[in-house]
C-alpha cells in the first residue's frame, strides 16, 4: 500500500510534499502531483504537510476520491519508474478521473 494524491491538489499543486519525500517519488503534472507507487516507501511524510489534505493512504481514500487511485496509476503508464522526480522534472500532462490522457 502507498499514498495517493487526490482531487484537492488539482490546480493547487502546493508542492510542499515534494520537499518532504525522502525518495523523491512525488511527480509533478501540469495541474497536480502524483505519487509513484513502486517508489513510495510508505513513510507518510507527505500526508500531514499537505495544506489541502489531498494525500491519503491508498487504503483510506474517501469513496468520492477513489477514481484518483486509478488515475494516479495511469499517470505512470508511460513514465514507469523514473527513479526520482529530480531526474525528469515537471510533466506537461495530467491524469484526472473521467478524462483521457490530457496532452
Amino acid at each position: 500500500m502507498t499514498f495517493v494524491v487526490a482531487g484537492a491538489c488539482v490546480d493547487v499543486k502546493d508542492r510542499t510534499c515534494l520537499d518532504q519525500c525522502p525518495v523523491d517519488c512525488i511527480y509533478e503534472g501540469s495541474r497536480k502531483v502524483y505519487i509513484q507507487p513502486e517508489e513510495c516507501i510508505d513513510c507518510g511524510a507527505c500526508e500531514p504537510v499537505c495544506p489541502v489534505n489531498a494525500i491519503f493512504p491508498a487504503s483510506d481514500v474517501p469513496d468520492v476520491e477513489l477514481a484518483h487511485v486509478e488515475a494516479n496509476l495511469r499517470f505512470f503508464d508511460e513514465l514507469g519508474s523514473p527513479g526520482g522526480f529530480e531526474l525528469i522534472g515537471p510533466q506537461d500532462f495530467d491524469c484526472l478521473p473521467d478524462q483521457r490522457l490530457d496532452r
Partner: protein
Amino acid sequence: MTADLRVAIVGSGPSGLYAAEGLSKAGCDIDILERLPAPYGLLRYGVAPDHLKIKSLVPAMARILGRPNVRFLGGIHVGRDIDITSLRELYDVLVYATGAAEDRPLGIPGEGLDGSRAAREFVSWYSGHPDADPSGIDLSATDVVVVGAGNVALDVARILARDPEELAGTDVPDHVLGRLRGSDVRDVHIVARRGPSFAKFSTTELREVGELANVDVIVRAAEVDGTDAATADPEQLRNLELFREWSRRPRAGKPRRIHFRFGLSPAELIGHRRVDQVVLDRMVPGGSGTWVATGEREVLRAGLILRAVGYRGVPVAGVPFDEHRGVIPHQDGRVVGSAGDGQYAVGWIKRGPSGVIGTNKADAQETVATILAAAPTLPRAAIRDPQAILDRLGASGVTPVTWAGWLAIDAAEVARGATRGAPRVKLSDRKEMEATALSAQARPDEETRKTA
C-alpha cells in the same frame, strides 16, 4: 549556491545524511563523525525490522555516503574521543545531528523495578544495537504493558506479538530471533492516557497491527464509543474510525492479543524486585485540553512494562542545550546562545523527536540553506588538512571505521543472512564489527584521504 566549506556532521542518521547531501552538492568537503561502527542512525537502529519498505531507503542513503566529497568516520564518540574545541580548529562548520538518545521516564513509584524498561531498550535490543543490554529483554511474562500512543508503542507491541517466523526473513540478529521464538508473551496491552482520537499512531501502521496473522486486536467499546472526535486531524479521525471498527470485531481465538486501552495513566508499579502489577488511573477530559484522574483505578497484572512516552536529546559537551525541551536551541538551524559561529543543528536534536524519516529532508534543507547563506562571512578553520583529524584521533588511540570498513561489515551481514534465507542478518557485537571493519582497512590513512 556553492561554498568551499570544510564541514563535520556529528551523527549519520537520516537528518545528518540529508544535510550531507545538500552541503556536498554545494561543493563542501564533509566528514561524518558517527559514534557507532555502522551508519544510518535510526534507519538502522530504530525502524522496525519488519518495515522493509522503509529500510529500502538505505541504498539512497549509501549513495550520499559514497559521494566523493563525503567521508564516513565511524566509531568516534564526539565529546569523548575528540572534543568540540578540537573540531572547531579543524572545520569551518559543525552540524549536530545527534538525535534524541534518551527516553523520558514515567516518574511514578516502582519505575526502578526489574521488568520496567524503556521501549527504546527493547527497540535497541531487537535492532541489534551494539550498546543494547547484552542480556536482552526478559520475555517470560505472559502479559506486557506498553505505555504510549505513538508509532514506537505500535512497533514494540507488533514485534512482541507477531509470529517470530515472520521475522526470520528480516535482519534481526540470531540471538533476538531465538529469544522471540521462546517468548511466553500472549497479551500486549497498549495503554494511552487520553482517548482514541488523541492517539498519534499513523493510520498506516495502526492498520498493519489489525492485519497480523496470529493476533486478535481487542478494543473496548466503552472506551471508544461516545468519545468526542476532539480533532479535525484527518489521520486521527481515521484512527478513531478504525478503533470503532475493531471494537465491534469478534475475537478469532488467535494465539496472541493486542489490547488498546484508552483513558488510563500508569500511577504505580508493584512487585517484589520484579514488576507484577501495573496500577492505572482512569482519566477523563478535564477541560481546556487537559485530562484528569477520576480517582477510579484499574490494576493490570503484567511482568513487563515498556514506556514509549517520548525521547529527548542528550547534550553535546560544550554546545548550548535547552534542558527543558531536550534540544539544541537554534534559529533556522543555526545554534544560538553561547555558541560561536559555524555551529548548526539538524533533525531531532534541533526540532525534538517528531515526524517521520522524510520530515528530516525538509528540516535538513532549512539548515543547509542557513549555512550556505552564511558561508561568505563564516570564519575559516585554522587547520585545513583532511589528515589532521585522523592524526589527532590516532594520538588518542582511536582508529575510525572508514567507508571501506563499513562495507566489510555490510558484506559480512549479507553473508550471514544467506544462512537464514534473509537479505541480511545484523552483527550486533561492537568488537566483532570493529574487527571486521579493520581487517578491510589495511591502509586507512590512504583510503580515507579520498577527499584530499
